[in-house]
């Protein structure tokens, strides 16, 4: 084999690219991270928030593999908020506001300290291929003509593919404002005949915080407590600031309506699909006209900037309408817009062309991660970067990729959704996407995944030590909780339980909502040393245990059907009983296992049996 400059080249220094490069390097692969400029690596291009519902789970899972995003977020967090605090912990979402500059600095600091990782400044003009059918990727060619060789390339180019910006009647070509779109590379990918589609996303105007009348608005302080995004961050270290809440109102809605005919969304200029869940403000007014107002969160972008991100009014209306709309809201009467909002329309690869390693099936060694796959959000991007980076590194080492599935991680839920269902709107993680979310909690990500990470060799020494200590502490507590305690003893210890003489383990007693682990001190003397998050995790394991037991049969089915491999070359048209629609979807998604085929939308149990029979006949 040709001696390459690197094992893996990652194109793009956003959240996906950084995680991909970092995990590959952690796994001992010689890795190059190629970015237009060194400075743009680790930039938060949109909303300065990290985490949230579903998204917070992804952040914790990436962190469980010793990824960057959670620690960088902690290093930059100026506002912490646990969403869904009042609901079951499995749907609680940790979220922070991050200072852009501090965040970027933290990412740079971690990448600089990473062995095996080289940052290359330059624009990738083209991919290089070798092999009989020119399907094996062998490196990249930069715009200055220089070449870098590698056995795998990870595309993490974000919206740079064919990006087009819209604001009222204005049109611009590019990804983010002020940056070039990677049009050459886009052409090559288009020529490669990959299935492509177009999506749109939007961003709100940025406001000068000095022109907002904060005193007139409801304040939203940072959460109490000292929880952090990464358990490896011992404490919050940055001064915490307030966010505030305002609302749109009838006047603002009228202003928006007056500009609808000039919005590219309604004039027909953009026909790509936007998201169902975070529509632009003009979409909201159009679709839900009966509402008298929509909440807008005013989120400061950092400690040393005056920019404020008004979360909830993403828009591509003309600038004059944006200004009038903003000024119609309470506290915003004198607000100045620094950068008007805009919509971006961009190409993405139909992720059904990817396998579960996020590798393009049609090529060898070419991976895609992040927005290029039709997702939205830093967290989704980072998570895909981790998956693609791990998979590429496993391929270099000739190892199997980790078996992540819908029952052990949101990471797998996302990859499975993307590669089987494709996207019809920018894909955003939601807890509702995870069937087994009772076991996939943001606060048990380490228990679920760090062990897998250690086997892969992507966990650094600090986290290995931390994890070992946590596991031994957990084992000790679990041992203590196996003690059988009769109800009269429980009552003696001050718990209010039925005096029916029933005897069960302390773990089983924890099932009752009025029995807390911290009150079990009389039975568990060693517990004092354990961290709060560990105690919470154990308590929730106990509380959800009856539900988890009920899922066991499903779990067995899921994993049994995951064992039935379908192979890459099934002729679905040869299977009688499949509708044309099913055949089409199955051909696009190419599910790798029977279980995955069952999750392709529209595939019925009858069809699944037919597929299984077909596969077994082929094997016979």
């Amino acid at each position: 084999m040709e001696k390459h400059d690197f094992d893996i080249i990652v194109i793009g220094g956003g959240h996906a690219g950084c995680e991909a490069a970092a995990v590959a390097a952690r796994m001992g692969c010689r890795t190059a991270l190629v970015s237009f400029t060194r400075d743009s690596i680790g930039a938060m291009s949109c909303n300065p928030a990290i985490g949230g519902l579903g998204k917070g789970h992804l952040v914790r899972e990436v962190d469980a593999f010793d990824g960057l995003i959670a620690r960088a977020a902690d290093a930059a967090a100026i506002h912490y908020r646990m969403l869904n605090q009042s609901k079951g912990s499995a749907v609680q979402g940790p979220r922070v506001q991050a200072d852009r500059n501090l965040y970027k600095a933290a990412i740079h600091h971690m990448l600089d300290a990473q062995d095996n990782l080289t940052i290359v400044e330059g624009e990738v003009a083209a991919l290089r291929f070798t092999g009989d059918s020119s399907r094996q990727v062998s490196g990249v060619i930069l715009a200055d003509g220089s070449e870098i060789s590698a056995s795998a390339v990870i595309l993490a180019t974000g919206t740079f593919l064919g990006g087009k910006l819209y604001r009222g009647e204005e049109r611009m070509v590019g990804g983010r404002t002020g940056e070039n779109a990677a049009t050459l590379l886009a052409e090559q990918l288009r020529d490669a005949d990959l299935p492509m589609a177009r999506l749109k996303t939007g961003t709100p105007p940025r406001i000068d915080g000095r022109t907002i009348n904060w005193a007139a608005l409801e304040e939203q302080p940072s959460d109490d407590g000292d929880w952090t995004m990464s358990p490896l961050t011992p404490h919050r270290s940055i001064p915490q600031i307030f966010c505030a809440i305002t609302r749109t109102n009838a006047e603002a809605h009228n202003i928006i309506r007056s500009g609808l005919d000039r919005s590219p969304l309604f004039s027909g200029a953009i026909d790509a699909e936007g998201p169902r869940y975070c529509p632009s403000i003009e979409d909201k007014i159009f679709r839900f006209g009966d509402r008298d107002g929509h909440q807008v969160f005013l989120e400061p972008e950092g400690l040393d900037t005056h920019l404020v991100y008004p979360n909830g009014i993403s828009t591509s209306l003309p600038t004059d309408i944006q200004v009038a709309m903003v000024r119609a809201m309470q506290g915003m009467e004198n607000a100045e817009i620094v950068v008007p909002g805009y919509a971006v329309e961009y190409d993405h690869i139909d992720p059904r062309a990817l396998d579960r390693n996020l590798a393009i099936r049609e090529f060898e060694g070419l991976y895609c991660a992040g927005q290029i796959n039709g997702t939205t959000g830093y967290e989704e991007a980072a998570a895909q970067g981790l998956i693609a980076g791990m998979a590429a590194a496993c391929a270099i080492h000739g190892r199997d990729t980790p078996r992540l599935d819908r029952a052990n991680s949101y990471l797998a839920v996302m990859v499975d959704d993307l590669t089987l269902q494709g996207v019809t709107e920018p894909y955003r993680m939601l807890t509702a996407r995870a069937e087994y979310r009772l076991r996939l909690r943001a606060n048990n990500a380490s228990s679920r995944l760090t062990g897998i990470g250690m086997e892969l060799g992507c966990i650094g020494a600090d986290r290995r030590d931390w994890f070992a200590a946590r596991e031994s502490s957990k084992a000790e507590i679990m041992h203590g909780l196996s003690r059988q305690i009769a109800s009269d003893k429980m009552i003696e210890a001050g718990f209010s339980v039925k005096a029916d003489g029933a005897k069960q383990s302390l773990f089983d007693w924890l099932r009752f909502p009025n029995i807390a682990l911290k009150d079990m001190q009389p039975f568990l003397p060693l517990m004092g040393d354990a961290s709060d998050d560990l105690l919470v995790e154990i308590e929730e394991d106990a509380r959800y245990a009856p539900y988890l037991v009920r899922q066991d049969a499903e779990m067995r089915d899921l994993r049994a059907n995951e064992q039935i491999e379908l192979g890459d070359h099934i002729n679905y048209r040869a299977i009688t009983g499949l509708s044309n629609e099913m055949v089409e979807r199955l051909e696009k998604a190419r599910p790798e296992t029977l279980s995955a085929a069952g999750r392709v939308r529209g595939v019925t149990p009858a069809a699944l049996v037919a597929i299984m029979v077909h596969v077994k006949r082929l094997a016979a």
Partner: protein
Amino acid sequence: MAAQDTIFALSSGQPPAAIAVMRISGTQAGAALQALGGSLPAPRQASLRQLVHPETGATLDHALVLWFPGPDTATGEDLAELHLHGGRAVVRAVETCLADMHGLRAAIAGEFTRRAFLNGRMDLAEAEGLGDLLTAESELQRQAAMSALSGRFSQAIESWREDILKLSARVEAELDFSDEDDVAAGALDALKVEASTMRSAIDAVLDQPSAEKLKEGIRVVLAGPPNSGKSTLINRLTEKEAAIVSDIAGTTRDIIEVPVAFQGIPFVFTDTAGLRDAEGDAIEKIGIERARTVIGEADIVLWLGAEGEGPQHPMLWEIEAQVDGTPPYAKSGADIRLSARTGENLDRLIAKLVSSASVLLPPPDSFAVNQRQRMHLLNVSTALTSIAELEDYLLIGEELRLARAALDGLLGSTHTEDMLDALFGRFCIGK
């Protein structure tokens, strides 16, 4: 795979009957038909053939035969049908002959339907409907089976599924979006009310008699002391079934079950005579024990003994028999006074039996659920019941997920995406 075997089975109900239809499905069906009948008839046309034992040359029957080449057949395979004269001897001889042929074997229960299903000839709900149709012996059964086939059951499931998707969407909106505003607050109570309304609708279906009842028939047990006229009455009621009735004499120590249809409604008459007449303590004891079990399973008990001394049963009818002579048990409050010998008032008994079907059997224009469907619906009902006790949206979401999974088991699959469609179609979800 076992699908390689060619299978055969009697598909027309147990002999004796006027005609017995033997079906053969699989790659060897054509060969088998040729071996028996000499040549393949034109596809899809009934032809008369002399069926001959391929080895001995003995004539088995003169039969109508049909030939349906696959894959456009009920099972998706080559299919042959032999319409035999319905005597037991003929059927048994043909069965023996087929079983001896290479590559053929008797089908196991439901195998034809399963093959149709595997070959993509029907979806699961249709498959179950057809399965019932194939074993249906009466008009009433046929109607109910047709109703499932034409998708009435599917429609009902579909509408429950929609309702549950909507509830799920609301719960998920609460979980994933309430912190982002734009979701109405305090909807928990309304949600519980709706869950409970839906549960009632499903329970109403569960409370209906099952499809098995339709297939098995209404169980009528004749009970009374020896010589109270049970055997005469059962013989008279089932006289069409002379062949089977004549079997009774030889097997008096067993429970005798005689299936009969009145006006298309299936009944199974059971005579407890043999059980009570037996002599010797041990057998008597077993007999009483079994009689009790039979009566426990009965839908209707015809009591021919002393008035008011019959077994406890919610539908016990006092019968005063032998009114043509001196009734052994004269009754002041008899439901029916009849004579099996003269036939007096037998028509009244039959009319009363037929009218009982309206309570005991699912109405033919509704759908009846079978055991498997019942199990899934019960799971839905259980999940909806649990919701009443829960305050945590997360756990309510889990119960609704289980309810969706159970409905999926009945019909097809719901994907999370369907729920998301419902979620986003209904709410303005802000960010």
